[in-house]
């Protein structure tokens, strides 16, 4: 029997009971709609986190100063105080695959300008820092190697600093005071927004690391080193190279732990997206349950339909329908019902995801894959839950079926 004729028959049978068909499909509609919307929300959250990760820069490896322990007392991160500028220079010189290195010292200070003051993060960095972070300047220029060598009192500022201290004028060329030392503003960073952890990345003043160490915090060790490898494939080699080099430079014997921590960008990304991935899976799983419940609804109605149409089945068999013709007819009916629900559900799911974006401001991302998967799954639900009733119909005895009242 031809598929087209069977399909026409299925559609007619479904049209005959419009209300019932709609209610049955509703289970699938809600299921598919929920899956699409939920996964859309999960993916939206994930893509937001990924964008934040990307704001770290490209192929970045971060080396943090580690902790020390002595007689059972352990310092916190950065407490080891063993990471030096020379370490950073050595990494740049000796580790293959490294293209940029920026020694980093971090500090918080009260700063003043225009009679206003503000507590902010002071970053002592090398001139390559903005290249590593892929962080363009909105205005002005970055300080240079000369400024680093000369411990010059220059800085570049983030957008938040401009808002807080220079509300009425362009800050480039003006000066601000860090611990009462005037620093000339060379440039303004383009806004970067929130970090993965939710802190304001634009609330920052960047000065040469040498100036930071000698003039501001008067320290001799680094907080961390930002390293950029030439490509993602090099990330592992670079991480291993840095580890070997630092262990050697810090004279750590085989039985001693690292006094530093290396984090590749991928690890940070993995850690940050793990939560959202779990959320996506969880939301998807809950929504799938409703899809299965919808499938059971289809099975129920198909069983009723087979009973109601026993006589019809008998007539069809009497005039020569094989068991498989009847099986196909009812299976196609179930699949039509579930796919129809799937299509409406997709429209509804995409619509509600868009609506959530618009109203609640949640980022949602409905991928083509999730739409195709949801549709195929809804069709599969039709096959799975339609098979038993269809088989029951095809196994009827024509004599009994014809006599059925």
């Amino acid at each position, binding site marked *: 029997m031809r598929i087209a004729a069977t399909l026409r028959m299925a559609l007619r049978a479904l049209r005959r009971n419009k209300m019932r068909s709609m209610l049955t499909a509703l289970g699938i509609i809600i299921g598919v709609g929920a899956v699409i919307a939920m996964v859309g929300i999960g993916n939206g959250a994930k893509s937001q986190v990924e964008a934040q990760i990307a704001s770290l820069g490209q192929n970045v490896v971060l080396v943090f100063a580690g902790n020390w322990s002595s007689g059972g007392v352990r310092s916190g991160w950065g407490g080891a105080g063993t990471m030096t500028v020379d370490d950073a220079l050595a990494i740049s010189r000796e580790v293959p695959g490294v293209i940029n290195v920026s020694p980093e010292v971090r500090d918080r200070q009260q700063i003043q300008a225009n009679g206003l003051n503000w507590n902010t993060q002071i970053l002592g960095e090398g001139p390559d820092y903005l290249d590593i972070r892929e962080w363009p300047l909105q205005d002005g220029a970055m300080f240079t190697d000369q400024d680093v060598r000369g411990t010059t009192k220059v800085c570049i500022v983030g957008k938040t600093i401009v808002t807080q201290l220079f509300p009425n004028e362009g800050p480039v060329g003006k000066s601000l005071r860090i611990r009462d030392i005037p620093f000339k503003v060379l440039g303004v960073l383009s806004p970067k927004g929130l970090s993965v952890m939710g802190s304001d990345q634009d609330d920052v003043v960047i000065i040469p690391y040498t100036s930071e160490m000698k003039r501001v915090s008067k320290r001799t060790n680094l907080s961390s080193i930002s390293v950029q490898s030439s490509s993602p494939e090099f990330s592992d080699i670079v991480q291993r190279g840095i580890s070997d080099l630092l262990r050697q430079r810090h004279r750590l014997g085989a039985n001693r732990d690292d006094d530093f921590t290396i984090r590749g960008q991928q690890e940070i990304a993995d850690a940050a997206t793990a939560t959202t991935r779990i959320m996506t899976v969880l939301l998807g799983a809950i929504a799938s349950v409703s899809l299965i419940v919808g499938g059971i609804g289809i099975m129920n109605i198909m069983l009723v339909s087979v009973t109601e149409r026993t006589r019809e089945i008998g007539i*069809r068999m*009497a005039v*020569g329908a094989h*068991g498989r013709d009847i099986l196909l007819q009812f299976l196609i009916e179930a699949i039509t019902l579930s796919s129809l629900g799937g299509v409406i559900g997709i429209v509804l799911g995409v619509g509600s995801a868009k609506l959530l974006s618009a109203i609640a401001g949640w980022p949602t991302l409905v991928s083509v894959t999730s739409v195709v998967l949801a549709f195929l799954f809804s069709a599969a639900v039709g096959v799975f839950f339609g098979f038993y009733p269809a088989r029951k119909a095809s196994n009827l005895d024509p004599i009994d079926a*014809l006599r059925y009242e």
Partner: protein
Amino acid sequence: MTAVIKLENVHKTYHTGDVEVLAVRGVTLEIAPGEFVAIMGASGSGKSTMMNIIGCLDRPTEGAYFLDGVDVSHLDRDELAAIRNKKLGFVFQGFNLLSRTSALENVELPMLYTHDRLSSAVQREHAIHALQIVGLADRADHYPNQLSGGQQQRVAIARGLVNHPAVLLADEPTGNLDTHTSVEVMGVFQKLNEAGITIVMVTHELDIAAFTKRNVIMRDGLVVNDTLVERRSFAEEALRRLDQAHQAVKLSA
């Protein structure tokens, strides 16, 4: 001429629980092409079981059944379905048309399940031709609930004819119809038979059986009487008489 239906010592035994029901207990019967046979008997005589076996809806437990020269007593479900589709046409007591499906589509139904399928245009042509034979071509688009009982039964006959079967089987075809319509339907059968179609009919009404050419009477699963009809009724004449009687009732009223 070889028989189109040939039953050899056919038995059918049903097992309902522990009880064995001997529905048919050794029937030997031959029906030649062009015959018009009524199988008669009281309920429980085994005539319905006989009809199911002849109609390839059921298989004999013992004995052989040759339909159009082919032994069909040992075929499986699907093979029997194919035989029903190709060689048999069915007319039932309750018409058994698909509701909310037009007369034309009802007649097309057997062609849906034919092995070598025709194009839908040819199917349509065949269906309309079959409807013309029973005089309902102008009602092709009507649904069963828009047709009278007699018209529904004629659609069913058209459905039975559409695949050019070797035998047309009718199970109590007039059981749900009034006298006048019954005679009309018998008229259709007589016309078809005159055109050469073999018809086997089950009925318990003697006056209906009188429209056929041969009566086979069954009792307790056996054929007890097999005679040619001597005083055959003809539908046209019977209708005229009925109309006259009707007229007479009207006049006297």
